[in-house]
């Protein structure tokens, strides 16, 4: 892939030396992160099939970018996920039960935003990006040194909020990373119908910020590139657009039927890029880990998710009255228990 930074795709010797440079600890941390995300995704798909959660947008294949985005940043840095990064918060220490509850439509699914410094999951495409700019700009204003990272898809780059966010970030010199997961599809819309510029990193020039491209299936390259962007941001260099070039290996979500709009042949072509297998190959050939060790990591992750899934049914129902009490700091009369469910005429009629 043209101008796309990669480690696992480099010639074997270069790969090994670059992995060794990263070091075993970091490499295993990255692998472990991916294992956690994969276990989450696998389990969520099963739970959806069992009818225990609702429609679910799988992120199978995006584990490398997502893991790198968390590991390359510091705990004080802010993350702004979309519907496709609902599990990144688990890499910040949040129990996987929480995002599973969200997909179960349970209010226990709202994670602790301030504790994990992960914004609430954002559904409308690109609208999380201005939030990321604000959080980053705030660091500049408060002379703090956190950075913010906003996730976007290839489709999201067409939306107005992407543009306004990039421009505002550049003008304010805010330490923000726009991480575009270019999986080449927005539901059924292929990249070539999304925009005429097929290298999305080139869009960065319109805002006067750097644009970097990285192999989305290579967790090590993603880490290196995101780390670079974060360092630039932290040292006052302002925003960067990072395009992770990949492919959506799965359907858009559990309700989607890719057979309607894309060829299984292309899918098959991309399937071997699956990032965990690819990372494992690299780690083993670099002598940084053996297959058994890695299998154990994955096994632990699966077990953890199985346990979370079992807890799912045990989460007590929350009443609508309780939820109504979470909308405002000082709950208005019309959301109080007396007026919410049975409007006051009920009392009046008694």
């Amino acid at each position, binding site marked *: 892939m043209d101008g796309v930074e990669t480690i696992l795709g480099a010639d074997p010797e270069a790969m090994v030396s670059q992995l060794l440079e990263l070091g075993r600890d970091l490499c295993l941390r990255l692998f472990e992160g991916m294992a956690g995300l994969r276990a989450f995704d696998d389990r969520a798909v099963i739970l959806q099939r069992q009818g225990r959660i*609702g*429609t679910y947008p799988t992120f199978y294949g995006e584990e490398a970018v997502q893991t790198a985005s968390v590991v390359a940043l510091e705990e004080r840095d802010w993350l702004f996920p979309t*519907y496709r990064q609902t599990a990144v918060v688990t890499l910040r220490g949040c129990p996987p039960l929480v995002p599973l509850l*969200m*997909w*179960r*439509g*349970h*209010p226990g*699914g709202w994670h602790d935003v301030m504790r994990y410094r992960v914004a609430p*999951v954002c*559904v*409308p*495409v*690109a*609208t999380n990006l201005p939030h990321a700019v604000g959080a980053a700009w705030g660091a500049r204003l408060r002379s703090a040194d956190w950075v913010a990272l906003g996730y976007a898809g290839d*489709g*999201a780059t*067409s*939306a*107005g*909020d992407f543009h306004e966010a990039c421009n505002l970030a550049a003008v304010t010199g805010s330490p923000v990373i726009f991480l575009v997961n270019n999986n080449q599809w*927005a*539901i*059924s*819309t292929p990249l070539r*119908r*999304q*925009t005429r510029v097929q290298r999305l990193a080139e869009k960065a020039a319109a805002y006067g910020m750097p644009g970097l491209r990285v192999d989305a299936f290579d967790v090590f390259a993603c880490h290196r590139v995101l780390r670079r962007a974060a360092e630039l941001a932290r040292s006052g260099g302002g925003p960067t657009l990072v395009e992770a070039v990949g492919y959506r290996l799965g359907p858009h979500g559990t*309700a989607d*039927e890719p057979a*309607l*709009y894309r060829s299984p042949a292309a899918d098959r072509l991309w399937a071997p890029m699956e990032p965990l297998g690819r990372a494992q190959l690299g780690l083993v050939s670099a002598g940084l880990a053996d297959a058994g060790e890695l299998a154990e990591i994955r096994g632990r992750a699966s077990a953890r998710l199985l346990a979370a899934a079992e807890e799912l049914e045990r989460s007590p*129902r*929350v*009443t*609508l009255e309780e*939820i*109504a009490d979470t*909308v405002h700091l000082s709950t*208005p009369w*019309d*959301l109080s228990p007396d007026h*919410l*469910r*049975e*409007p006051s*005429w*009920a009392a*009046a*009629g008694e």
Partner: protein
Amino acid sequence: MSEVTAPQATQELNLVEAVDRALGQILEDDPQALLLGEDIGANGGVFRATAGLEARFGPDRVFDTPLGEAGFVGAALGLCLAGLHPVVEIQFDAFSYPAFEQLVSHVGRFRWRTGGHYGLRLVVRVPYGGGTRAPELHSDSPETLFGHVPGLRVVVPSDPVSAGRLLVSAQGCGDPVVFLEPKRIYRRGRSPVPERFGPTELDRAAVVRDGDDLTLVAYGAMVELALAAATRLEAAGCSARVLDLRSLYPLDRESLLAAAEETGRVLVVHEAPRHCGLGAEVAALLQEEVADRLLAPTLRVTGMNMPFPLFQNEDDALPSVERVLAAAQVMLDY
């Protein structure tokens, strides 16, 4: 267009299939019509409301847009200037908000800005409402927003036949229509629909069940609920009329006043938040016009003034037959 009166071959379709068929009919009858939206082509729309249409009419007439609801709703206005008649699909209710400015500041104001001379033949279809176990922001009911701003018609069908006829009529009316499709009942069961949908008056409510003691005013997915409540009321000796509003702006004043005058009690049911919702408008209108004919205050069974909850709690938030019955009882006892 004239009413279709001849007997026709019928077929059983559900609401979303009826929408699909109506769109096919529009594309067939009107060479200037075209469809735009996200994933409406090969994919046939996320609800399959445009299934088969790209294959039949080609990708220029069933166009998959890039993302950006403001951009493609705005472009639809420009397409109208070029003599075309776009029908836009917004994928889900809450994704109409990015197009809000284009709809309010331009689409609704266009005819007025031409001194009344030129209108936009533009329909914006929006699957809306709760009850489908969907993720956040996929269950909103934005009808009040579009009804409150000037220049837009707001139309909501409640069954396959009304969906087809209202959609065909909306597309032919010469002015922009926000066409809200109650996605909860997209697949609620099939009814016989004619091979071709004839036009119908756009701003008329329909009495879908007659009654003398009380009128339940509803629209969209709430009509079914109102009918269920009416059956229960009948068992309890109360004869309830069900008025399907269909047009949320303009309101069918005559049918509403007739309901108030003939039944003396009017109860409004909707999913949207209560504050400044359609229920408020109906209650205020009846006050202004026929307060002396009302035997009981106009009550509302509506969504709450809070975000539509994640789906574990959606049944708690949606109007229920029980809530309707309780309100009806208060009115009957008044």
